[in-house]
C-alpha cells in the first residue's frame, strides 16, 4: 500500500526552481534515504512534504495521512542545545495536536509521551534537563517527540549530524528498529551518505530533478551510486 506518492513535483524557492518534475512513490514500511549534494533540493523537498512550502507544479498525495500527521525530526539548533526544559516538557511539545485546543496536557497525552520515550529507550531520562543530555540522548528525545505526532511516517533531517560514531550507530539501529518493528515509514536526509544508504531500503538521489530512485542494492551498482558513494566500503555498523 502506498503511503505517499509524489507526482511531477516542482517547487520554486527563493525565486528559482529548486525542484523540477520529481516523481516517486513510497510504500508502507519503506526506509528511504534522500541523497544529493548541497543545494540539490533535499531540504526543499522535505519542507514541501511537510506542507511548509507549496508546490508550484505537480502534487503530493498522502494516503490516509495529512502533512500535520508526519513525525518530523528537524536538525538541532543552537538554541536547543542548552535549553532549560525537562525531557518530558520537550517530548510533550510533540503532542499538541493530540491534545487539541485544551490549554493543559491531558493524562492520555502524557502517557503517549512516556510510551514514545520508552520506544526510543529514553524513559529514564524523562525528568532530566534536556540541555544537560549528551548529543545522542538529545536526538533520541527529539525522535520520541516526532513519534508523538505520527504512527506512520517519520521524516528525519540529518539525524546523526554532530554525533560521535558510537551514538551514530546507536541512533541508526534505533531508527531501523522503529522502521521494522513499528512498521513506520522513514524518510531520512543525511550527509553521512555511505552509512545512511546502507541503512535504508530505498534511495532517492536528486539534483533538482530525479537522478535515481530505487532499491539500495541497485543504487550501489548504478552509475550515479558509484560516482556518489565512491568505491570505498562502508565501515560503520548496521544490520546489512
Amino acid at each position, binding site marked *: 500500500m502506498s503511503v505517499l506518492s509524489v507526482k511531477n513535483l516542482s517547487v520554486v524557492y527563493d525565486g528559482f526552481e529548486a525542484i523540477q518534475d520529481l516523481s516517486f512513490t513510497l510504500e508502507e514500511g519503506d526506509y528511504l534515504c534522500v541523497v544529493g549534494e548541497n543545494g540539490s533540493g533535499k531540504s526543499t523537498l522535505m519542507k514541501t512534504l511537510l506542507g511548509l512550502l507549496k508546490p508550484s507544479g505537480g502534487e503530493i498525495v498522502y494516503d490516509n495521512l495529512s502533512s500535520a500527521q508526519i513525525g518530523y525530526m528537524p536538525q538541532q539548533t543552537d538554541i536547543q542545545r542548552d535549553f*532549560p526544559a*525537562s525531557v518530558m*516538557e520537550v517530548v510533550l*511539545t510533540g503532542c499538541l495536536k493530540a491534545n487539541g485546543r485544551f490549554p493543559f496536557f491531558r493524562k492520555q497525552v502524557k502517557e503517549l509521551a512516556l510510551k514514545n520515550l520508552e520506544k526510543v529507550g529514553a524513559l529514564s531520562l524523562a525528568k532530566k534537563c534536556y540541555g544537560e543530555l549528551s548529543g545522542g540522548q538529545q536526538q533520541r528525545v527529539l525522535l520520541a517527540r516526532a513519534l508523538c505526532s505520527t504512527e506512520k511516517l517519520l521524516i528525519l533531517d540529518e539525524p546523526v549530524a554532530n554525533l560521535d560514531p558510537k551514538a551514530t550507530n546507536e541512533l541508526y539501529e534505533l531508527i531501523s528498529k522503529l522502521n521494522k518493528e513499528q512498521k513506520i515509514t522513514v524518510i531520512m536526509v543525511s550527509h553521512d551518505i555511505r552509512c545512511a544508504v546502507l541503512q535504508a531500503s530505498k534511495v532517492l538521489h536528486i539534483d533538482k530533478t530525479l537522478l535515481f530512485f530505487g532499491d539500495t542494492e541497485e543504487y550501489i551498482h548504478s552509475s550515479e551510486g558509484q560516482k556518489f558513494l565512491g568505491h570505498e566500503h562502508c565501515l560503520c555498523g548496521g544490520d546489512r
Partner: protein
Amino acid sequence: MAEVISDILSLTFMQRALIVGILVSLSAALLGVSLVLKRYSMIGDGLSHVGFCTLSIAAVMNWAPLYFSIPVVVIAAFFLLHLSENGKIKGDAATALITTSSLAVGVIITSLGSGMTTDVNNYMFGSILIMSESDVRLSVILSVAVLTLFIVFYNRILAVTFDESFAKATGIRANLYKMLLSILTALTIVLGMRMMGTLLISGLIVFPALTSMGVFKRFKAVIICSAVVSVVCFIVGIFGSYIFSTPAGASVVVANLIAFTIMRTVGAVISRRR
C-alpha cells in the same frame, strides 16, 4: 522599616508606581524567558528607543503619549521580528539600525520643540512621578492580557520557543505566536519605559530570565522563578530608591543585577555538588 514602608504606601505616586511597576515586571519576566531563549534579547532595547521617539513626537505635537506610542511601537516590533528573519539585514544589525535612528529622530524632535530639558532626562532614565491614573488602568488591562494569553498558549509558546520548524511542521501557526509575543512585548515596553527609562527597560526583560536559568532547568520552573524574581527585584529596587534617594529605574536594574549574581553563584555551587 515598617514606618518607611507605610510612608511609601501612603504616597499616591508611589502607589501608582508600585502597581504599574509590579504588573509590568511580571509581564516582562514572562515574555523575557521566550525572548532571551530565542536570542531576541535586544528587541526590548530597540523597541524602547522607538518608544522614546514616539514620546518626543507626542510631546511636541501635544498628543496623548500612550495612544500614539502603542500602535507605532507595535508596528516596529512586528518589523523587527520580520526583518531579523527574512530581511537582507540580519537580526542584531537591524535592531541597531532601528535603535540609533529612532534615538536620533527623537532627540532632534525634542530639541526643535522644547529643547533638551529634564523631559529628555526622564525619558532616558525614567521617573516614577510620571504615572497617571490612566497608566494604572492600562497596565492592569495589559498585564491581565499578558498573563491570560501566556497561560492559555503556554504549551504552544514553549513549542515555538524550543523549535520553530517542528512546531510549523506539526501545524502550529508559529508566526502567529511570534507576532503575539512581539505585540505583548511592545505593549509591556511602552508602559514600563517611562518609569524605568528608555535605556534601562530592557533590563526587565533580560535579567529575570537569565537569573532563573542559572538555577532552574525546567521551563515551568524558569518561568515561575523569573516572575517571582522580577516582582521582588522591582519592589526592592523601588523601596531602595526611596530610602537612598537613587533613581528608580536604575535601582530596579541594580536589584536585578544583585539577584542575578546571587542566583548564578547558587547555580554554580549546585552544579558543582552534583
